[in-house]
């Protein structure tokens, strides 16, 4: 860590350091992949890659929405609860039609996003508090819908969605990829994406430029919640059961970690879509690598925590220039 605080870096070393900081997540990901290729048997096997992809897909999807919210200098703690709500909707409506079930799951996401977004955009409540409400209540509502039980789901369409592959790639991973492309387009190519970045970078300036700040904030929270609802639906489909007690439990932490490790500053003004995807995959691979190499679950968590703190430390450096 001493390199970070070396007082007078030369121009070239400063540039090199900047490159490392901006692209740290890709470098770290490459290191972990290379290490596994050498040290972990069967790492490159099709089965293992497929397994990792299926496991990481929901985190990627939730983290993409989270990146957008964090880009506005906000945060959404309710994503896990929204996943549970979507799972409950799927359980209730799957008997009528799998498509209706998916639609209702997404509708639950829209409703949750409108609630979060209204609290933030129109009542001016701090995002961490505004979304804490659903974080606490959302899972309770989901449990009430399913009478507090795990509901098993026997539906071929949903099962295919959760477990089948297309060209050897799990459908869940393809969906996550498509959502990442969509998010990248939104952030980089649209006025909406620029508005998000401007609000996070300087909210007063965004207001003064006549941008529709409140509407943008509302939509940002809706998108985040809809992404979370999609993730909840996919998890439900994969496990063939809706379990509101555990679907998406603590996923807000993984998502925030992926976003931050991916290079999006917590104080907003930037959204790194590809970095977020890489951040989610990195954290997944680190965890599974440690487990595969016989570290206990609790030790693995401590390593994860160290990575989070290191990532935030770099963020701080970046923000304070």
């Amino acid at each position, binding site marked *: 860590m001493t390199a970070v605080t070396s007082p007078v870096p030369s121009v070239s070393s400063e540039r090199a350091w900047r490159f490392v900081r901006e692209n740290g997540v890709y470098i770290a990901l490459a290191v972990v992949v290379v290490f596994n290729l050498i040290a972990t048997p069967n790492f490159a096997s099709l089965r293992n890659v497929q397994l990792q992809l299926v496991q990481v897909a929901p985190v990627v999807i939730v983290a993409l929405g989270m990146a957008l919210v964090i880009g506005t200098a906000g945060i959404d703690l309710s994503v896990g609860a929204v996943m549970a709500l979507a799972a409950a909707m799927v359980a209730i409506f799957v008997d009528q039609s799998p498509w209706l079930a998916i639609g209702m799951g997404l509708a639950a996401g829209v409703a949750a996003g409108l609630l979060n977004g209204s609290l933030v955009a129109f009542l001016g409540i701090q995002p961490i508090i505004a979304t804490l409400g659903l974080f606490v209540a959302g899972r309770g509502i989901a449990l009430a819908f399913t009478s507090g039980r795990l509901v098993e789901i026997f539906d071929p369409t949903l099962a295919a969605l959760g477990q089948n592959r297309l060209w050897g790639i799990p459908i869940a991973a393809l969906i996550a990829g498509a959502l990442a492309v969509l998010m990248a387009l939104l952030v980089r190519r649209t006025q909406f994406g*620029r508005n998000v970045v401007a609000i996070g970078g300087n909210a007063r300036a965004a207001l003064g430029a*006549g941008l529709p700040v409140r509407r943008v904030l509302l939509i940002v929270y809706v998108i985040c919640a809809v992404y979370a609802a999609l993730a909840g639906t996919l998890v439900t489909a994969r496990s063939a059961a809706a379990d509101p007690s555990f679907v998406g439990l603590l996923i807000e932490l993984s998502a925030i970690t992926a976003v931050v490790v991916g290079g999006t500053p917590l104080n907003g003004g930037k959204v790194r879509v590809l970095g977020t995807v890489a951040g989610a995959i990195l954290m997944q691979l680190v965890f599974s690598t440690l487990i595969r190499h016989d570290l206990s679950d609790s030790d693995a968590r401590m390593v994860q925590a160290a990575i989070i703190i290191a990532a935030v430390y770099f963020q701080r450096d970046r923000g304070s220039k």
Partner: protein
Amino acid sequence: MTRGEPTLQAIDLTKRFPGVTALDSVSVDMYPGEVHALVGENGAGKSTLIKLINGVYGADEGELRLEGEPFAFAGPRQAWEAGISTTFQEINLEPFMTVAQNLLLGREPTRGFGLVDVKKMNADAARLLRRYGIAVDERRPLGSVGVAVQQMIAIVRAVSTDAKVVILDEPTSSLEPNEVEQLFRVIRILRDDGVALLYVSHDLDEIFELCDQVTVLRDGRRVHTGPVAQITRLELVATMLGREVQDVRSSGKTAFDIEGRRIGAEPVLAASGLTRHRVLTDVSVDVRAGEVVGLAGLLGSGRSETVQGIFGLMRLDDGEVRVKDSVLKQGSPASAVSHGVGLLPEDRKADGIVPTMSVKDNITLAASRSVTRWGFVSSSKVEALVKKYIDRLQIKVTDLDQGVDELSGGNQQKVLLARLLCTNPDVVLLDEPTRGIDVGAKAEIQGLIDELAMEGLAVILISSELEDVIEGSNRVFVLKEGVIVGELHGDAISEDAVMDLIAHALTDQSEHGP
């Protein structure tokens, strides 16, 4: 007035920051039992001087002496312990603790084991409050008493350690008139006790009522020191603004040329009855196509607040803004922008620049209508637009994707002007467009304002440099304490006339009482 030896002497203090000399060889002597006023416009160096005295900064050159002894404090805490107390504009106390706890914070009487002797603490506090004539229950939480009382408690807390020097930085900025009287009573008690007081204020009434000496700073230099009794209000205003009372120049120093403008018949924008409690009272201004309307007045007179109220950045209690035939939605800058009104904010860092975005994105931020199609940003349209304004405003950038935070102040200001012009506005509100930028960029921006007016844009201009407003404007509204005290047209616009209005409005006010 018993002068004796000065309690505190500042001798030839100089403080430089990168790019500016904030304070240039300034000397001030403060005597026991005197209230010494420190005045000057924003950026004159008042706060730098205070921060040198109380040890927040170290001086680059010069010397400070307390009762004849040279000193240099490492921080406000050390200064406080040596007898120099400072109260700042924002009250810096704990709202959830009691009045007594706040008064004695950090030096509570204890009963051993570090336990606070609450009874003795309350008794000590009550004695202090009685001494300064402050009627408040010392056991109440501080947050539940009025702002004035909080302010006085801050002062009493500051002086209750045998202070020799007390520095008051705009203590009345958040007080009602009757509360100001209460505060003055406390200040007079301190003065009579032989404390040397430094009183920073923009309010001339207060200075003439309370202070014995006055020092005027301008652009980091001391331009006047003398007894308050020997200066008139008009002279003081002129000194603050850097003008001789009789000195009337027609033109020549700025890049403005108001002859070539063709002014429309009907106002493009008309604001009427803008009112916000304690900020603006029934302010009405209007501007026509091709016209530059100046807002003049001292700092805190409501100039910036007027344009913020028009633009919707500041909520109003009452008032209406019409642009052509429609009424702007209250409190909505988006409505103002969509009706062709743009604001160049006074504080370009806090309210203008988005530091995480590129030059390109900063310029086109507000121009979504001309660079997007179906919500998608067209990069070719963005580049064309950005290049056009970079050429026109001579913005110095290495490339269009350069981070805007890497630009100089003048170029950042031009980026914001470009952002404004990208929206093809009919009315622009320019709040201090030339502050804090170098002379060259300043002349360019003045020339640009001129050009814009000739092209038929309606401009409302604010500048704390009086000559900018005088020479650049076709019409000038003069503001004082949130009220328009006069409107000057054409040949009647002169520095004398503006200063006269400001000074007379003060006289009127003091005659009618607070």
